[in-house]
């Protein structure tokens, strides 16, 4: 979904790493997503709607995934590294969500009072 422009390189699993060109395109993609995020912050109708928080989390998750897959070449490397990372990441995210529930903060997508 994310890096459709760089798909050709992404299909060569284990064959060879992406080229410099792929990296530059990826950087461009990440920049665009960041610009979208910052614009959303300043665009009141979006920023004040209930969709704001989920959309921001989604966009940053996309950036996170792309950096891990392409820059950290998890997509191209031995599966071991993916497993070594995804396990701890899952536990970290679940713990964070658990803590938010326990402290009554699970509803972070509703506006929080000052």
């Amino acid at each position, binding site marked *: 979904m994310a890096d459709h422009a760089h798909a050709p390189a992404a299909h060569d699993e284990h064959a060879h790493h992406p080229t410099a060109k792929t990296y530059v395109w990826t950087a461009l993609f990440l920049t665009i997503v960041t610009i979208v995020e910052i614009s959303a912050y300043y665009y009141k109708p979006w920023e004040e709607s209930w969709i704001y928080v989920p959309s921001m989390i989604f966009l940053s998750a996309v950036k996170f995934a792309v950096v891990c897959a392409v820059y950290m070449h998890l997509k191209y490397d031995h599966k*071991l590294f993916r497993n070594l990372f995804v396990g701890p990441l899952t*536990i970290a995210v*679940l*713990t964070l969500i658990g*803590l938010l529930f*326990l402290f009554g903060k699970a509803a972070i997508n509703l506006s929080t009072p000052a």
Partner: protein
Amino acid sequence: MATTVAAPSYAPPRTRTAEPTGGIWSWIATTDHKKIGVLYLFTALFFFIFGGLEAAVIRAQLAAPNQTLVSAELYNQLFTMHGTTMVFLAIMPLSAAFFNFLIPLQIGARDVAFPRLNAFSYWVYLLGGLFITAPIFAGLAPDGGWFGYAPLTTRQYSPGLNIDFWVLGLQILGISSLAAGFNFITTIINLRAPGMTLMRMPMFTWMSFVVQFLVVLAFPVITVALVFLQFDRFFGTNFYTLSAGADPLLWQHLFWIFGHPEVYILILPAFGLVSEVIPTFSRKPLFGYSVMVYSGILIGFLGFGVWAHHMFSVGMGPIADTVFGLTTMLIAIPTGVKIFNWMSTMWGGALKFTTPMLFSIGLVSMFTIGGLSGVSHSSPPADLQQTDTYYVVAHFHYVLFGGSIMGIFAGIYHYFPKMFGRLMHDGLGKWHFWINLIGMNLTFGPMHFSGLLGMPRRIYTYDANQGWDVYNLMSSVGTAIIIVATLIFIWNFFSSLRNGPVAGRDPWGASTLEWSIPSPPPNYNFAEIPKVTSRYPLWDLQEGDLTREHHERHEAVDDHVPTDKELGIPMPSDTAKPALAALGLCVMIGGMLLKQVNMPVFFMVVGTGAVVFVGSLYAWLTSPLEEAH
């Protein structure tokens, strides 16, 4: 398989392995995982005894009502240090002794992935342990419980240096464990001999593998909790400052997110050791190997989801209580499965009740008792009655003393011959076991009753005639019995080092790779890296053409164990840089407490520590591991 266990063959005493193990320098500069394992063992046994003495004073104080042996303040220091010592300075390092000594041998490797980092872990542990233990001699020992609940441990309620020692000491010790965690994860993934798939690994290595993940995932959380406390105490932040709106439960949640995986860190290595001993002395493979592996992994994973069962009385609400109650009940399943698998291993086996076997059976039975009281805790309404009473003290001592410590003793008796080339006296070992079993049950059994009769934890004395007196007296008498047992063990340990019967390469007729090399092993471990074709390499091979007679003939002739130079095996060189880096690190972190005492000295000490640390780290990172390449 005709191999027997008892008396060794009367072959002439073999020459020890190539190089002598003497000389202080060789110990300070070693990067050999076996020597580092021995260092951990001796240091941890020392702290085990020290923590035991702290318990002895506690039990002397509580033997009768209204005693004045120690003041309330000193009592707080005693129970805090007893817990901190046993958890962080005794049990974890005893497990580390086995991780270090055994894992490379069990997987057919020459050493761990990062030998110098390994040495660094040990020295940081030693110095951190001394740092956190020393203040008791000045009456300044940490006194906030081993779990250090904030806000009690904030500067407002604990103004002295006691908690500063605790916070900084634990940070130092955390670094030691984390470094070792990364080291062993890499070692187990990447240095297994050809043919040793994950599902052919010995059970001790498997359990240790799970433990290393628990360490690297749980310790960062307590690091953060401690950083918050440290920053509050030193720099005036407000993480635990109620008057600034801080949540009184933040510490508890963060601590127990670490604390619960920590108890699995404490028990799984013992489970692993017992899983080596029981099959050996039942002459049967471990029952349900795969199930044992998966249940270990499941325990590790689920262990991150049960933490708030330590907080059932704080008012989290019915949903949180129910969720954590359920997950806690769930985790009893994979744990219970292991008990049945050990019993099934013994069923129908040719049982040999050596000392390691007795201690292993001890773990299975005592841990079951502790597990049952644990399951009773998993129900929030029941726990509301039990929490903060001696019932809980009974529970965790059954699982930690009856579980972890017994498993570790099983491991010590079992692996002593491999480590030191001599057997421990089995008769004395049996005295140790039985006296220890009686003492342990007499000490902790009655606590179930005094706890349910309402005796709270962490009280330095109590009034008579509340129904607690006789139980407390029993516990104190039991403690004296434990002391006797421990003295027998110490005597056996040291006298066996000097003149125990010489052990061969495989006195027990065991099945795994570590028993295929001399006792003690040469520094390079394996002359040739073995090719593994089964879970029980020695048993499977010996069923074939080779008879025991053939082995003995070979061994008697091969008295000379070749050196690494003779075999052309490049070995890492000795270096004191890790020890020096550890010293710099500990001075840098420990020195921070001088901020409360004297500012110029604070800067000088922390600065010097930083320079030594960075300098030796730089020298370490820029020098090669092995000499001539």
